[in-house]
C-alpha cells in the first residue's frame, strides 16, 4: 500500500513537469495548427541555457529557468519567422518534415557546439528529501513541480485575462474572424510559437537539478510529450496539465507492475490506444 502511495506521489511530482513541458507543444498546435516534431529539442536548449547560466554566472537552474524562458522565446520567435511561417499553409508533409529537419539541426547543432558530454549541475538541495510518514518526497522533484505549477498558473491567467492572450485564443478559434476584428494573427503566431518553446525550455531548466544535459536528451521526451498532449487533447493547454499528471502516474504505477524496461512500451501503447479511440483527447468536451 505504501509502495503505491509512494508511486502516486512520485508520479504526480514528475507529471507536473511533464505537464509544463508539454503545454508548450499543445499551445503551438492549438494556435497555429502545426505539430512541431522538433519541440522536445527546445527542452534540451533550455537545459543548456540553464546549465551555462549555472556554470558561468552561478545562477541556480530554478532561477535560470527564467533566463531559459526568455532566451528560447526569442530564439523560437526567430525560428517561427524564418522557417515555420512559410509552411503554415503548406501540405502536412511539408510541415512534418520541416520540423523533423529542424529536430536534426537542433540536436546536432548542439553536438557541434557543446560536444557529446553529459553535464550536470550541483546544488545544495539536489540530494535532499522530505519525509512524511513512510513517504519520501524528493526535494528537487518537489521544487520542479512547484515551479511548473506556478508557471502553469501564470500561463492560464495570461491566456484568460490579458489582451494578447485573448487575441491568441481568438486566432486559434477562427483566424479569419480574428483578422477581421483587427488582430495581427501573424504576430500572434510568432508569440505563440516563442511562448510554446519557451515554456518547454523553462521545464527543461527546472528539471536540470536532478538530470544531466546532453545533445540527445530531447529524444527521451519526444513520445512522452506527444502522449501527454494527445491524452489531454491536441491544442488544449488545460488538457496538457491533466495529461501530464496522468502520464506521470501511469509511468510510476507501471513500474510497480511491469519491469521498468517496459516503461516506454506501456507509454506507447497508451498513446496508440488513445489516438485510435479518442483522437480528440480524453477531455475534449469537458474542457476547451
Amino acid at each position, binding site marked *: 500500500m505504501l509502495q503505491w502511495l509512494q508511486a502516486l506521489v512520485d508520479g504526480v511530482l514528475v507529471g507536473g513537469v511533464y505537464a509544463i513541458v508539454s503545454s508548450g507543444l499543445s499551445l503551438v498546435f492549438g494556435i497555429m495548427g502545426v505539430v512541431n516534431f522538433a519541440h522536445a529539442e527546445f527542452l534540451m536548449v533550455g537545459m543548456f541555457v540553464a546549465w551555462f547560466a549555472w556554470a558561468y554566472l552561478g545562477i541556480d537552474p530554478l532561477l535560470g529557468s527564467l533566463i531559459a524562458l526568455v532566451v528560447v522565446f526569442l530564439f523560437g520567435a526567430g525560428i517561427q519567422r524564418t522557417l515555420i511561417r512559410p509552411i503554415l499553409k503548406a501540405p502536412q508533409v511539408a510541415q*512534418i518534415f520541416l520540423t523533423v529537419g529542424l529536430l*536534426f539541426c537542433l540536436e546536432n*547543432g548542439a553536438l557541434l557546439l557543446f560536444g557529446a558530454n553529459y553535464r550536470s549541475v550541483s546544488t545544495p538541495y539536489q540530494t535532499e528529501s522530505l519525509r512524511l510518514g513512510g513517504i519520501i518526497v524528493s526535494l528537487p522533484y518537489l521544487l520542479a513541480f512547484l515551479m511548473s505549477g506556478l508557471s502553469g498558473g501564470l500561463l492560464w491567467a495570461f491566456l484568460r485575462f490579458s489582451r494578447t492572450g485573448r487575441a491568441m485564443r481568438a486566432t486559434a478559434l477562427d483566424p479569419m474572424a480574428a483578422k477581421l476584428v483587427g488582430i495581427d494573427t501573424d504576430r500572434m503566431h510568432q508569440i505563440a510559437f516563442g511562448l510554446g518553446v519557451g515554456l518547454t525550455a523553462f521545464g527543461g531548466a527546472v528539471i536540470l537539478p536532478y538530470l544531466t544535459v546532453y545533445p540527445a536528451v530531447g529524444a527521451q521526451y519526444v*513520445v512522452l510529450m506527444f502522449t501527454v498532449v494527445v491524452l489531454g487533447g491536441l491544442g488544449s493547454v488545460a488538457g496538457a496539465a491533466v495529461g501530464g499528471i496522468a502520464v506521470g502516474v501511469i509511468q510510476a504505477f507501471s513500474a510497480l507492475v511491469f519491469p521498468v524496461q517496459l516503461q516506454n*512500451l506501456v507509454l506507447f501503447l497508451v498513446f*496508440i490506444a488513445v489516438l485510435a479511440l479518442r483522437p480528440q483527447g480524453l477531455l475534449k468536451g469537458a474542457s476547451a
Partner: protein
Amino acid sequence: MTEAVASPRAAALRPGRAVLIAAVLAVALAVPLGLDPQGYPIRVLTLTLLFAAMGQAWNIVGGLANQISLGHAGFFGIGAYASTILLRDFGLSPWLGMLAGMALAALAAAALAVPTFRLKGHYFALVTLAFGEVMRVIANSWSSVTGGPVGLSVPFAPDSLWMFQFGAARPYYYICLGALVAVTLVFWRIKAGALGYRLRAIKENADAAEVIGVDTFRAKLQAGLISATLTAGLGTVYAQFSYFFDPDTIFGVATISVRMALIAIVGGVGLTFGPIVGAFFIIPVEEFANAALAGRAAGLSAFVYGAVLIAVILLKPEGLLALFAALGKRWRERRR
C-alpha cells in the same frame, strides 16, 4: 505537392523514355564489372540502390496514399529479424525467411490499420512513429528470441545464392538492383492502375471519393499492406548484406524511418523516379561527408542532413526532379 509535375499521363511510357530507361539499366548492369567486387565504391552503390528501393516502398504510402509514415523501420526490422531468426534456429534459407517476414509485416500493417484508418496527417505520422518505437522496445526486451540489445549476427556461410550469402559486394549489388527494379515496377503499376486512381481521388478529396463509391479504407489498406510487405523484404536484404544488426539500427527513427521518407521527398514525392534520384543524392553525400570529416566535427553530417531537409521543403517542396525539370526547361529556352 506532386501533381504539378506528374500529370495524369505520366504513367504512360513514351518511347523516348523507354530507351532512356533501358540505357540507364544497361549502365547499372555494367558498372560493377569495372569495380573491385569487394571494394568500397561498390558497397556504397549497393547501399544506394537498397535505400532507393526503400524510399520507393515508402513512396507507395507516402506518395500515392498521402499517408505520412514515420514508422516504416518497424516493417523493415520485422523482415530482418524474421529471416535471420529462422536462419539461425532452423537453417532456413533467407529467401524463404524473407517470405515469412513479408507475411508478418503484412499482418502488422493490417493490425496497425485498425487504430489508424481514421487518422490523417499529423495523427497518422504520430501513431506510426510510436509503432516503430514499439517494435524497437520489443526487439530490445525479448532477448530470448531476438538476441536483445546485443543484436543478431547472420550465421557465417560460404558463398551461396540459396543461402543468400556472399563474401563480396558484387552479388548484393545485383540483388539490390533487382529489388529496386521490382519495387519500382510495383509502384508504377499501382500508380497507373485502378488503385492509383482511387488513391489520387482520396488524396484530392476523401469525402468526395467516398461519395462516388471509393472504399477509402480498402484502398489505403491495400497500399499500406503492399508497402509494408516490400519494406520487410528489403529488411531481409539489408540483414544479409550487413551480416549484423541491432534493434537501435534496424528500428532507428533517423537511420531508417526518416531516411526512407527523406529520400522520397528529396527526389520528388509520388514520382516514379523520385526515390531513385533522392537516394543517389543523399547516400553519396552522407558517405562523402563521413569520409571527408572523419569525426573532426561530430554531428556535422547529421546537421547537414537536417538542413538539406529544411532547404528542400522551403525552396522546392516538389523535390530534385522538379528542380532538374525546371532547370532543363530554362536551359532549353535560353538556347532557342
